[in-house]
């Protein structure tokens, strides 16, 4: 078992005192970065990159990847406490995480999120460690048609979940698609929907829209309902952690399923965002309490967080072996590798054994260290909700403005964020579901692009979407998910009909 030997060698490298210290520093810094929407993981990693040249490559990558882990953990904090997802894959966490916090269960929601992230990432690292030779090439089988099929699957497992007016759901989703389409069209190189404006040329960034729709609108709603964030009471201590773990044990099946969805989506590499939406959708569809999702069910936190982090972690595999980054942060890490003279690609595992296994070992340790640090801090995070509303609202506004600005370094985006804040407030009050809008915004562009690329390849023939076993089975699964509500009704009726 040469892998195991290599891994233990990796552990011995990662466990050197300097590297261990770097790990802790990286996690703490990463959590800070994750909490401030203005400092995404990509930002932190990019800025620290030059500093790491004084370190050994292995130490440097340990520091950077721990910042990455810390930022992943940290992203859930703002989603749960303030309804502000810092990254696209934290959006699904807000659906139940924020209501939980409002019901006074912030500590439980945070613990569930952290623990699920940890489990998801851990499963993914196991996959990377033991089956990487088997799955490393899997991403190669993904052409545009397969990408489209995966996107379709993500939409199909999510669609039809929102209650309320189907027309409002549709309008909301269409607005999302339109926003996603603004900017340069990759396939033709034409500018779309910019109406001659330079500001619109960069398109509508997810973060700007979501900070407005979710974060700012929440402040407006809170003040309308009486100057307070609901649910700031509630016992907050470390015992909440144990209680939550006991509760999570009852949802083992969801954890395992979500981790598998995440790993698969990461390796393909469709990425963490569709993984989190899909996992949430599937969990809700298969749950007996499906109707209570969105009102603060713990499964609604576990499912997206586990999947997102399993995907985020396993996406490092195609990055290392094929050089395709799964996220902006991964892209910057990739740039770092190249600067250290490490060429990502099929040969990396052969030529740079020390480095690769040091990195994998640091993933194991970094995650454990990270989990301990964030869990200990849960009561403090939850205590933020006790800060008086006028103070916290002002600080959130400032942090949101910085977040919106730094996405594109454009002050115009701050204005956009405020406009979306008002839109979100009005839409929420009129019972328009916001999740379909965000889903379409985040995935719309890639979906349309891969659809059109696929048809270019097939010269307009739809047969490309069933041209091989892989794409055909993903499409079939998508249709199964789409018609699941109808099918499950038929299924449950059959025995009843037989009995009658």
């Amino acid at each position: 078992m040469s892998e195991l030997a290599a891994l233990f060698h990796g552990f011995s490298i990662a466990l050197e005192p300097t590297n261990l210290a770097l790990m802790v520093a990286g996690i703490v810094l990463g959590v800070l970065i994750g909490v401030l929407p203005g400092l995404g993981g990509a930002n932190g990693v990019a800025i620290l990159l030059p500093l790491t040249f004084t370190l050994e490559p292995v130490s440097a990558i340990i520091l950077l990847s721990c910042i990455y882990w810390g930022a992943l953990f940290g992203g859930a904090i703002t989603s749960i406490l303030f309804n502000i997802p810092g990254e696209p894959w934290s959006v699904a966490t807000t659906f139940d995480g924020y209501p939980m916090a409002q019901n006074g269960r912030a500590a439980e929601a945070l613990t569930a999120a952290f623990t699920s992230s940890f489990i998801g990432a851990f499963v993914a690292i196991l996959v990377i460690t033991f089956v990487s030779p088997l799955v490393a090439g899997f991403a190669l089988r993904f052409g545009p048609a397969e990408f489209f099929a995966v996107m379709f699957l993500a939409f199909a497992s999510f669609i039809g979940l929102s209650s309320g007016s189907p027309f409002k759901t549709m309008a909301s989703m269409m607005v999302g698609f339109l926003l996603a389409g603004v900017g340069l069209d990759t396939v033709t190189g034409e500018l779309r929907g910019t109406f001659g404006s330079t500001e619109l040329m960069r398109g509508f960034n997810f973060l700007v829209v979501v900070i407005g729709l979710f974060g700012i609108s929440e402040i407006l709603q809170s003040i309308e309902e009486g100057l307070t964030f609901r649910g700031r009471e509630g016992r907050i201590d470390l015992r909440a952690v144990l209680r939550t773990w006991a509760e999570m044990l009852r949802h083992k099946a969801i954890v395992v399923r979500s981790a598998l969805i995440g790993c698969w989506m990461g390796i393909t590499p469709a990425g963490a965002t569709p993984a989190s939406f899909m996992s949430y959708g599937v969990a809700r569809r298969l749950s007996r309490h499906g109707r209570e999702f969105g009102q603060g069910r713990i499964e609604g936190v576990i499912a997206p967080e586990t999947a997102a982090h399993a995907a985020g972690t396993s996406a490092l595999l195609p990055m290392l072996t094929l050089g395709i980054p799964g996220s902006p942060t991964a892209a910057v890490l990739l740039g770092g590798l190249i600067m250290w003279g490490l060429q990502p690609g099929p040969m990396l595992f052969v030529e740079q054994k020390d480095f690769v296994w040091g990195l994998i070992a640091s993933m194991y340790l970094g995650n454990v260290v990270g989990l301990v640090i964030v869990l200990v801090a849960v009561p403090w995070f939850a205590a933020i909700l006790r800060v008086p509303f006028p103070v916290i609202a002002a600080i959130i506004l400032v942090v949101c403005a910085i977040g919106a600005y730094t996405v594109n370094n454009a002050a115009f985006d701050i204005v956009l964020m405020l406009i979306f804040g008002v839109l979100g407030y009005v839409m929420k009050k009129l019972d328009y579901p916001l999740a379909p809008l965000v889903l379409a915004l985040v995935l719309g562009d890639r979906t349309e692009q891969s659809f059109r690329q696929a048809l270019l390849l097939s010269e307009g023939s739809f047969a490309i979407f069933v041209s091989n076993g892989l794409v055909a089975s993903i499409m079939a699964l998508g249709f199964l998910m789409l018609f699941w509500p109808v099918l499950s009704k038929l299924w449950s009726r059959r025995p009843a009909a037989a009995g009658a």
Partner: protein
Amino acid sequence: MPQFAGGGSGIGQTTVEVVLALLFVAVGGLAVSEGLRLGNGWGFDGPQAGYFPFWIGILLISASGVTLVQALRRRGEGRLFVTWPRLFLVFRVLAPAAVYGAAIFFVGIYAASAGLVLWFMRGIGGFPLRQAVPVAAALVTVTFLVFEIWFLVPLPKGPLEHALGF
């Protein structure tokens, strides 16, 4: 102005429903026109650049059209979207936020943020200045240190920062 049985007056639910639906119809119209400009056909090798904007625009118009009709049918119910006093509360947050957004263009984000915190704490929260000023100062200092100095993320700056040499 519809009256609500429970007391108080405000903006009717129908009014807002109609306005938002009309807004979406307008956005859909823009998308349709943009789709037509780019070509909304289906080429021999797949859809043209304007195909999706065009049809998504049509779908948006139809969905919002139905919502519009539904809202108009329920006109008589007199449900309120928000009462005036509550709307006033919202504006107490929204107005300074809008001013804040505009001020960033002129005085930079740091001065504007300090002003916003002072306004919220003093004007809305009723905190005394001796509490509000330190909070504002601390927030600005911490943001400045974290973004400009440690992470080298340049944020918008105004005359004040330029005078200080940044």
